[in-house]
């Protein structure tokens, strides 16, 4: 299963390396969202600095929608779903591989956005360890939920509208926990962020388990 996961993740990351869709389209989109928040909030530096954790994670969420849609749009053409099914790869391996590939892309994006909030919002990232740990936990959860619903919506004529409707409510607890953990990190009080970090890990573990258990059924219907 893990070997299959690495194979699938490697495939997806190689495709991204060659097409550079995340780099050329998703990353500029995410930075643009940061700029739009600044316009919407009247470019008030104090407000922006205070709201940095929330704005950062909403930007990540919106960019993640695109990344997930892209990850499954790859599989929806040229009979790739059938090829995946016939390849003998373990469905759970395919799921974990997809999660891994989306996570790597999102973590790179978060690094870029982190730099963005420091430069644009004057945010002080005082507890880097907590911020990185919360980001990794949240990203795994985000990718797990994304891949679970992504395969479900993939190939449907209404995929573009169905995916946000399924994904965003499911991600609401993650947004809350990630924002609170980042709040503690930005304020330089990491101890207050630890329970939120625990919630993020629990969330990611729950959806990874759900994905491993049900991905076979969803893949059959993709």
């Amino acid at each position: 299963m893990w070997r299959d996961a690495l194979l699938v993740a490697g495939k997806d990351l190689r495709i991204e390396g060659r097409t550079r869709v995340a780099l050329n389209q998703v990353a500029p989109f995410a930075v643009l969202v940061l700029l739009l928040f600044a316009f919407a909030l009247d470019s008030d530096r104090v407000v922006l600095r205070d709201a940095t954790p929330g704005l950062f994670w909403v930007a990540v969420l919106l960019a993640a929608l695109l990344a997930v849609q892209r990850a499954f749009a790859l599989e929806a053409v040229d009979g790739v779903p059938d090829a995946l099914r016939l390849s003998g790869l373990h469905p759970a391996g395919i799921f974990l591989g997809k999660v891994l590939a989306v996570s790597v892309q999102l973590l790179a994006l978060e690094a870029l956005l982190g730099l963005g909030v420091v430069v644009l919002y004057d945010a002080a990232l005082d507890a880097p360890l907590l911020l990185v740990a919360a980001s990794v936990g949240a990203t795994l959860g985000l990718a797990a939920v994304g891949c679970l619903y992504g395969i479900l919506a993939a190939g449907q004529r209404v995929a573009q509208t169905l995916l946000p409707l399924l994904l965003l409510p499911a991600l609401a607890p993650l947004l809350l926990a990630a924002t609170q953990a980042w709040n503690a990190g930005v304020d330089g009080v990491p101890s207050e962020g630890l329970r939120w970090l625990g919630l993020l890990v629990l969330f990611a573990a729950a959806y990874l388990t759900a994905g491993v258990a049900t991905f076979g059924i969803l893949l059959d219907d993709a």
Partner: protein
Amino acid sequence: MDETTASKATRVLGAVSLVGLALLVLFGLVISGPDNASVGVDANGAPTGQGEVVRIMYVHVPTAIIAFLAFFVTVAGSIGYLVRRSEWWDLVAHASAELGAVLLFATLVTGALWGEPTWGTYWEWQDARLTTTAVLFFLVLGYLAVRRLPLERDRRSRLAAVVGLLLGPATIVCHYATTWWRTLHQGPTISRLDPQIEGTMLFSLMLGMAVFLALYAWLLLHRFRVLWLENRVEDLGLDVALAERRAEAATPPAGPTPTGVSS
């Protein structure tokens, strides 16, 4: 095929539900009194707290609890479908989710109407129960969107069953939100050994529970039967189309033949 989805049992259940509803209106609006115990006075001497507003509780609490029950039935139906692959479980899950969505929407609306005079706001972001209920409502809308996907019935049912399973944890979080997070919403009032209300108020609330449970069961039976009949009509349409194609294949087409001579 029957021309109605009613049976003798559902007619009785329907009559009981409607009589119960009338009784609930009577007890909720007339017989039970205002909540004087929790009425306070603000800085200007104006009364605050529940007072007459408490009557919303007789609808708000039962719709919330029966909505949660409906979602657990959906989860059970989804598990049943994934294990047995039977249409029966699938339709139970579908019908129950629809009713749960309506009941939860009623809960949100009545909650907002209660919140304005009591908390001074229709919506309170700091309240965990409110926000988790809203999230649950949107999750159910997502489930119902999957149920409307233009797919083969079996594929749609399998996808919906997987999404339906995820309603379970969300419902549990929503139910325990007031216990886990001490926010504005009051904690358990009646689901404890020493209920915090009594007399006609407690009776009206219990009556509300029974009435909404009966309404849910009644509507569930009818909705299940309508969905079942919809599937039969779909099958029938397929059979008719197949028979027509077979008939076309069996009879040579009228009109010019390839040789140009009419048959």
